């Protein structure tokens, strides 16, 4: 049978009969019993067919693919034949892509083909344009040095075929997105100006690709030039893209506006020019380098004329939305520009398209939160009609914007409140959100609130038959407004009739639901009941501040009202998120400052051992802080720091409380305390090493806390680790002294005392007896200081992941042989000087370290993302292995040298969570 089939297959040598012999080939290849000699003959036949120009290469390649899959020993021959075939000048595109798919870039036999660039370059310079296009679109399968690739791509932007120019431009963008760093300034400029030339290509797809290339390379061009040119280059890039906003193609217009929105700094006069058709005096004569038309290579600043208004008035909603979105970033630095756009943005609120309305609102909200939104009376109608829009998203976005608005007149405020209540009546489902808006806007217009509440207080009184009309939505709204009115806690006076507060209590649940971000139910209840006992003051008496703020007296805190700089971005309404990074940073820093202040205030309570109250407060503080992490998937360094700090203080409080009551110690033993202290120590060490940008003060603060940890431990008689902790204590004291020598600040009494104690203990003979007493004395001197955050903190962080690996999909390994584990590693804020180790551990004891040389991987210090195949050697003969992997940083300042072979010389500070890697033995 086999022979017959072989004969049939061999008959196919004649190319005309090949299709007939196809089946014979398939049978021979797929049958596992086919003899080796037959297979060899089959392979030879197929390979000879492949080399003939007239055969159906696609079919033969499929057969060869099947052959090498079924019979790996023939793989080498197949690969060799395919390599030869690829280099034939007569190759066609489908065959080429098919042939290349046969070669696995990871396969050692094919590796040289993909990695030595010669194949790529040879194919690039073929006469066939289609091959070039295919290559440029599939660059990623070849291992071409970025410099070579860049040169090739730049060269192909001159190709006469538009689809190759397009592919080359796309490739140029892709290179940048892949994180390739181009340092040659003239090359960056070359790419940028070439892309700019192609903005005037006759082919739409080329123009489209050119817009994104101009955007990306333009930004790189700005960044790679010295500071004194940056502003001009940034302006030039802006103008270059402005030229494209009048293109006839919708997509080009959209991407032009998208790209405009990515330019962070633009001169104000150019921005203002985008709002006016007439050349402004400030821009009239200015000329920037760039491409104005196909032939003119200087752009006048007037090219920006009316760009945004054209975009906002475009026929296509995509363009309008994109223009609106671009405004969001561009208006941040310029209040005047923002003012100029308000009029149009307000008009956009009546746009036919929901997405545009929503985007316009977002932009307005952004404007408002930057304090750029100046509302005129004639805008209000438009604003308020949006409050009763039948799209819930729009209404919610409008309410968010309202919260930041400053209304100049009482009439404006009144109509705002009326419309919010109308919103409430029409759409009861918005109640919580509307309450919040009422509260926020009330807080920022307190004088108006007092007036309004006094006007309507009659309405809020129960009717003659004693029934309260509280089920009325309007009353509920007004109660919320009343809560936002100022009261004076000291003088026990309020500016609204106190009975209103007691009426409001009846709606506590509903109101609380709305104000959930501001206050919890208990707080609100006690606040309301407090206020209802106040005396009413006339409006002439001006009450400032003191709102919903119970401070420590009631062991509850609310932050937002305390610090004026802090405004609340807390609640997330729907999918739209408004806070810009800059804004949220400012907010988070000021919020963290307030939190730290609160923590200092907690110290007396900790000393008294009232840990329940302290814990509750700390919990709420943590919640507050968490709000800032919701906005972005990566919280800012300062927020992470604050969370760590709060946690450390909580541990400190607990430990302190523990150490206070000796009975506790006697009952429960050292175990629990040791656990707390251990945790705290780890936390503090992390805080010390995992942040870049810490000042001496901050460092000192943490070192001091560390001293407290050690002191508590030693004071409570942890005799087992006495030596170790004494050494640690000394080390920290030395560090403090070192810091002290460097900078001018005072060392606290606690530290000086501890220094003495340490010296005394060193001299003392019976250390273990004297020590606790001495240490307790110095601990009494400790008081928590306010930690001052001065700079921007960067959190060193790492993520390590093995793509697609879990217990169901383990990686295969052969016992006794090393296995390569493909890690995906993301590093944040880690500079290349830091020594990083990948710690791979099996079980508790055995850990293998792999050094990560950051210079080998691309990316910036801020974020580095790369793939890394780490070998793991200790593959024992087990069916299944679970490895725990994490990334550690070698702390250079740690005093201990670890004698370790092939591993870090110092203690590791772990930067990532443990990731589990599942391996399973290959079963033959």
């Amino acid at each position: 049978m086999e022979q017959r089939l072989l004969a049939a297959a061999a008959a196919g040598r004649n190319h005309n009969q090949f299709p007939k012999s196809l089946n014979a080939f398939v049978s021979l290849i797929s049958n596992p019993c086919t003899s080796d000699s037959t297979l060899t003959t089959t392979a030879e036949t197929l390979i000879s067919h492949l080399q003939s120009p007239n055969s159906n290469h696609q079919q033969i390649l499929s057969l060869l693919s099947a052959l090498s899959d079924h019979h790996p020993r023939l793989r080498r021959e197949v690969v060799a034949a395919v390599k030869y075939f690829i280099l034939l000048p007569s190759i066609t595109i489908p065959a080429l892509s098919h042939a290349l798919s046969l070669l696995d870039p990871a396969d050692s036999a094919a590796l040289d083909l993909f990695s030595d660039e010669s194949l790529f370059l040879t194919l690039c310079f073929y006469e066939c344009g289609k091959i070039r296009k295919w290559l440029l679109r599939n660059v990623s399968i070849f291992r071409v040095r970025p410099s070579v690739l860049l040169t090739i791509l730049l060269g192909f932007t001159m190709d006469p075929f538009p689809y190759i120019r397009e592919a080359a431009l796309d490739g140029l963008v892709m290179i940048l997105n892949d994180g390739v760093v181009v340092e040659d300034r003239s090359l960056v400029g070359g790419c940028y100006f070439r892309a700019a030339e192609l903005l005037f290509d006759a082919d739409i797809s080329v123009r489209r690709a050119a817009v994104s290339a101009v955007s990306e390379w333009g930004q790189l061009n700005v960044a790679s030039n010295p500071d004194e040119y940056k502003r001009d280059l940034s302006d030039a890039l802006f103008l270059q893209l402005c030229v494209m906003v009048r293109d006839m193609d919708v997509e080009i217009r959209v991407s032009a506006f998208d790209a405009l929105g990515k330019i962070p700094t633009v001169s104000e006069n150019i921005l203002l020019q985008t709002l006016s058709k007439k050349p402004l005096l400030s821009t009239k004569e200015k000329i920037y380098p760039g491409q104005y038309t196909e032939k003119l290579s200087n752009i006048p600043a007037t090219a920006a004329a009316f760009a945004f208004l054209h975009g906002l008035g475009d026929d296509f909603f995509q363009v309008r939305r994109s223009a609106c979105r671009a405004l969001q970033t561009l208006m941040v630095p310029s209040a005047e520009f923002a003012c100029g756009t308000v009029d149009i943005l307000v008009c956009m609120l009546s746009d036919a398209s929901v997405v545009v309305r929503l985007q316009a609102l977002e932009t307005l909200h952004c404007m408002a939160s930057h304090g750029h939104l100046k509302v005129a009376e004639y805008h209000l109608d438009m604003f308020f009609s949006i409050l009763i829009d039948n799209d819930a998203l729009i209404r919610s976005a409008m309410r968010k914007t309202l919260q930041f608005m400053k209304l100049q007149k009482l009439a404006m405020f009144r109509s705002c409140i009326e419309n919010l209540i109308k919103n409430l009546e029409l759409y009861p489902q918005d109640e919580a959100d509307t309450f919040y808006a009422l509260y926020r806007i009330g807080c920022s217009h307190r004088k108006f609130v007092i007036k309004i509440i006094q006007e309507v207080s009659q309405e809020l009184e129960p009717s003659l038959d004693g029934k309260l009309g509280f089920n009325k939505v309007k009353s509920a709204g007004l109660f919320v407004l009343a809560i936002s009115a100022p009261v004076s806690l000291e003088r026990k006076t309020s500016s609204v009739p106190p009975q209103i507060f007691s009426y409001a209590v009846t709606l506590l649940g509903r109101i609380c639901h709305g104000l959930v971000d501001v206050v919890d139910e208990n707080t609100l209840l006690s606040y309301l009941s407090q206020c209802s006992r106040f005396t009413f003051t006339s409006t002439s008496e001006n009450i400032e501040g003191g709102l919903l703020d119970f401070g420590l007296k009631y062991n509850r805190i609310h932050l937002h009202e305390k610090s004026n700089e802090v405004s609340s971005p807390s609640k997330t309404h729907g999918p739209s998120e408004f806070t810009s990074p800059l804004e949220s940073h400012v907010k988070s820093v000021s919020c963290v400052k307030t939190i730290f202040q609160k923590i200092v205030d907690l110290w007396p309570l900790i000393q008294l051992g009232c840990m329940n109250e302290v814990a509750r407060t700390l919990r709420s503080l943590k919640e507050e802080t968490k709000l800032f992490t919701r906005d972005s998937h990566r919280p800012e360094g300062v927020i992470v720091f604050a969370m760590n700090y709060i946690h450390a203080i909580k541990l400190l409080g607990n430990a302190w409380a523990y150490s206070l009551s000796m009975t506790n110690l006697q009952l429960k033993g050292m175990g629990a305390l040791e656990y707390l202290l251990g945790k705290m120590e780890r936390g503090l060490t992390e805080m010390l090493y995992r942040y870049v940008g810490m000042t001496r003060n901050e460092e000192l603060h943490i070192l001091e806390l560390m001293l407290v940890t050690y002191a508590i431990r030693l004071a409570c008689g942890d005799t087992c680790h006495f030596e170790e902790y004494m050494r640690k204590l000394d080390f920290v004291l030395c560090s403090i002294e070192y810091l002290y020598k460097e900078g001018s600040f005072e060392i606290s009494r606690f530290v000086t005392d501890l220094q003495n104690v340490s010296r005394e203990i060193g001299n003392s003979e019976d250390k273990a007896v004297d020590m606790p007493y001495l240490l307790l004395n110095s601990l009494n001197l400790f008081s928590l200081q306010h930690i001052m955050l001065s700079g921007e903190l960067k959190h060193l962080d790492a993520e390590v992941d093995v793509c697609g690996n879990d217990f169901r999909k383990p990686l295969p390994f052969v016992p006794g042989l090393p296995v390569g584990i493909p890690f995906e590693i993301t590093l944040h804020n880690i500079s290349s000087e830091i020594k990083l180790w990948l710690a791979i551990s099996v079980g508790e004891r055995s850990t293998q370290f792999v050094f990560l040389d950051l210079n080998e991987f691309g990316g910036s210090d801020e974020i580095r993302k790369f793939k890394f195949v780490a070998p793991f050697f200790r593959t024992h003969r087990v069916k299944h292995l679970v490895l725990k992997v994490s990334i550690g940083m070698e702390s250079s300042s740690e005093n201990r040298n670890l004698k370790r072979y092939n591993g870090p010389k110092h203690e590791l500070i772990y930067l990532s969570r443990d990731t589990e890697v599942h391996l399973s033995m290959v079963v033959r």
Partner: protein
Amino acid sequence: MAIECLVLGAGQEVGKSCVVVTINGKRIMFDCGMHMRYKDLRQYPDFSLISDSGEFTSSLSCVIITHFHLDHIGALPYFTQVCGYEGPIYMTYPTKALAPLALEDYRNTFERGGEKAQFTSEHIAECMKKVTAVDLKQTIHVDKDIQIRAYYAGHVLGAAMFYAKVGDASLVYTGDYNMVPDRHLGAAQIDQLQLDLVISESTYATTYRDSKYVQEREFLKAVHKCVTSGGKVLIPSNALGRTQELCLLLDDYWERTNLKVPIYFSSGSTIQANLYHKILINWASQNVKDTHARHNALDFKNVRSFDRSLINAPGPCVLFASPGNLNGGFSLEILKHWAPYKENLVMLPGSCSNGIIGSKLMSAKIPTQIKLDENVKTDVRCQIHKLAFSAHTDGKGIMDLVTFLLPKHVLLVHGEKPKMAALKEKIQSELGIECCYPANNETVTIPSTHHIEAGVSDAFLQSCMAPNFMFWKTNVGSDERTPPILQVHDDRVGQGMLTLQNPRVFTQNELRDVLGVENHQVKFAHCCSAAYDSEVSNAASDWSPSTSQKNSLLQLLFGLVSGDFPDCIMHDCQKGIQVGSFVASLCSREECPSSNADALHFRCTWSVTEEELAWKVISLVKNVKLSREST
């Protein structure tokens, strides 16, 4: 080759658009409009300039009409039915549908005035039968040489810009267009084309119009204020275009603000026009297109038709009445009734020709009295508001279009002379494009592209296919501050050579074969001598060295030269020396005038490229004195 443009109308004026373009022997007439100010034959373009004999059918290849406004189509029935043009006429589908309405409307008003129009209803109908309707972006082959294509122009329902190409020369005639979208129509939309000429309208050549949002807000504010205080609003507007635009705006505003005040259309033609707008949804703005599946925006919810009895009915209302310029008709009648009350409002269009009621109202100070005709005067106490809307593009829009199309020439029509001059200046200075604005009946000749078909050699074709790029650094722009940047060049096409007789392109390597000539090489020659000490060899005065002596002297010289030029070789059986292409061989001519007994003479030759080297060697040879001792 040239494009010849004969401007028959709308040259340095607004009205009776008509341009006859001759390209490569083909003549196309763009638009055939009438001037509304005249009532005699002056209202038509001077067709006799096309053909003295009146034989228009043979002298024109086709007539293209951009849209149905009378200043673009008004003369067409006259031209076809009276002047007898029988050739093809092209216009878009909506224009073909709406043109009879507009023409009929004009004829009716004209005849109502007691005069006789130049064409009849039958003429209109017959004329329309000759029209070929085209679709947007559909390429029409008028004959084997002429291609035309229509592009969306905004402006009014069915308006189009036309692209025409004859042979290699191509142009775009814009007609009237709008570069920004309004509520019912989109913005003009055209491809990037290789053009020799753009003939553009320039009605608002120097105007810069504000954003449409601002215009709309002002309009709505005025209307709102009037109706909420109980007044009546009269909006004189023509049935097509403006009415729909404002209705869309008002209807939407009414919906949003929940106003219950009625909005009226005055005439039946408005309703018919509305119908066309509703049917031709494809020609509407993107917004109308996007939403029409749910709700046709032109199905106005708050708009109904007007009844005469409502003129004096109490209560506020908004009324659209034609004609737009208040020059008689229903709108004037309403004005008589409503103008005396100060709570009422009249919305005047942005521009009115001089002398008619509209312009009088615009310049009047309220309250006043205006003359409606000879005998009738009316008090005007109502408010007057000027609309800023226009369906024409403004100066910025014209610049934007020209910048996008980048033609080699621009010709401006349909505008006022001083404004056109200003725009011409701007186009020439900012974009470096030639521009002109001829007056009526003037002819302008514009050079056009002419391509020659040429064969290619295989080698050239191959060199074109393979990439061949180079990089070098150059300064970009005039800015000296920036360092020179890398520029890429790919000269594969430019490196070919073209023979003009029997045009053919080939590569440099093929040059000799193609031309059948020898390869010539330029060589330099020079005579130089190296002095030697004659005493060393012989005392005789007429001594000349023997061959062997010469050889030894040459050896001597070779030794010296090769010291300085290491790649020097002895050449040709020791008759000379060679460095690169430089060859110095012994000169044996006895009668040489420069011959000198004490010198060895050399004939030196070298190629152009090695001139510097050659002179170095020569100067070395000249300066040596060979003597036995030196060996």
